[in-house]
């Protein structure tokens, strides 16, 4: 396919939906770069693109699960993939299998929280002290893996299992 602007080989293919109409553009890399900020023109910020990307890939291996609904809010995985929004806090553990690979794609291969923990008892019912420990251990584990200290990593992994019960 040729670039609409200059006739060179088109490598950037853009589909834009404007007022319900589909507009396709085919450009070469140079013309695409000059066409100031394609991402802003398509009104699709990077994280939305990323979300879409993640959603599209996240579902491939999980077809059989799609009809399972969350017992609390009733959302199915298929419904979530369409809207990009979850229905309630229980969806995360409910769709654990599908969720974890999706989170890894969206968050630089991470699937574990290591940041702030509420000081009050979390809604999960897990005492906060324990979750804090697990979070800290997980961070140490990441560091151990980074420095290739596998002996320590194995030890930490066991401790995390214990901490999480």
């Amino acid at each position: 396919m040729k670039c609409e602007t200059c006739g060179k080989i088109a490598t950037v293919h853009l589909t834009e939906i404007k007022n319900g109409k589909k507009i396709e553009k085919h450009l070469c890399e140079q013309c695409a770069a000059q066409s100031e900020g394609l991402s802003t023109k398509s009104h699709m910020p990077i994280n939305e693109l990323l979300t879409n990307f993640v959603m599209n890939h996240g579902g491939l291996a999980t077809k059989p699960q799609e009809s399972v609904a969350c017992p609390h809010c009733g959302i199915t995985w298929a419904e979530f993939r369409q809207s990009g929004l979850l229905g309630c806090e229980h969806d995360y553990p409910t769709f654990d299998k599908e969720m974890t690979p999706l989170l890894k794609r969206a968050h630089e291969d991470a699937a574990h929280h290591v940041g702030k923990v509420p000081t009050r008892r979390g809604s999960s019912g897990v005492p906060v002290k324990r979750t804090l420990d697990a979070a800290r251990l997980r961070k140490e584990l990441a560091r151990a893996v980074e420095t290739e200290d596998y002996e320590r990593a194995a030890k930490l992994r066991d401790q995390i299992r214990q901490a999480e019960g």
Partner: protein
Amino acid sequence: MKLSDLTNQAGEWLRGSGPMSEIVISSRIRLARNVSGYPFLSKSSRHQRNALEKKVRDTILTLQPADHMLYVDLEDAPQVDRDLLVERHLISKPHAAAEGARGVAIGENETVSIMVNEEDHLRIQVLRSGLQLEETWAQINKIDDVLENKLDFAFHPRFGYLTACPTNVGTGIRVSVMLHLPALKLTGEIEKVFRAAKDLRLAVRGLYGEGTEATGDFYQISNQTTLGKTEEEIINDLKHVVIPKIIDYEHQARKMLLTERTVALDDKVQRALGILRTARLIASEETLFLLSHLRVGINLGRVKDVDIRTLNELFLMTQPAHLQKMHGKKLEGDARRAVRADYIRSRLGGN
């Protein structure tokens, strides 16, 4: 304090001071939180949505997590008030346009805003002028601590703070720095910054966040990853790695313009000032564009008789909702452009 009082003053973040303020307009952090026991908004009934809004509103007004909290009920607020809040970066565009029970609490000289029933139950935001990410984090962390005394936030030991969209889960944090990069734009090097930011999994957006275009050479850089890193790590990546580099590039580009393309630079700056001081009808996009050029002129000492504070106020007050609020009536088309041009001339000593 009433909403109408806002129009007469500029928020803290527009003071035009703060570290690196010649390039860094503002530092912003927001935390996404949901209240356990209530479904997320896409699955909330009208009744649940109303009940949650009331619960969160009452909690905020009782706890006063920031000084002088003002709560604005957005379901009842007129369009111009909602637009005004968007222009002041206190609520998002989707929050202004949405329907149903929702609101925003504003406090501490507009550095703090807490959106209720946006995409998540709570979107806590702290916005400060210049590069002040650590101070911003300290402030918002405290507010979050105060709120969690009364609100049981949805949290899971492995997933962290649970959010409606999995792209926010974990810390629920979005750290954004608003940059003014006119020289990198002029020298055509801005694309390099975008590419580098993308490689580092950072988002580049326009003046009003998600889905807005970069106008007037203002760019908002923010993290995408919210899981698997601590809040401090996310902040430090931006503060010590990414932002200083971009600031440095912009400085170099400005220096280059100043030494090698002085006439071209002065031409841009003086033309901008000339139009702003003489125009009789001016659209908001053109205003933003010209004020951007004027800003770099002031920063580089090419314009001496306009101060940065006046300029910042112009950025704010020339926006559609602000102009209409100032005049107390709906203004459209040429009427609005005329009022805008008059205001700018009066502030810049034009004729």
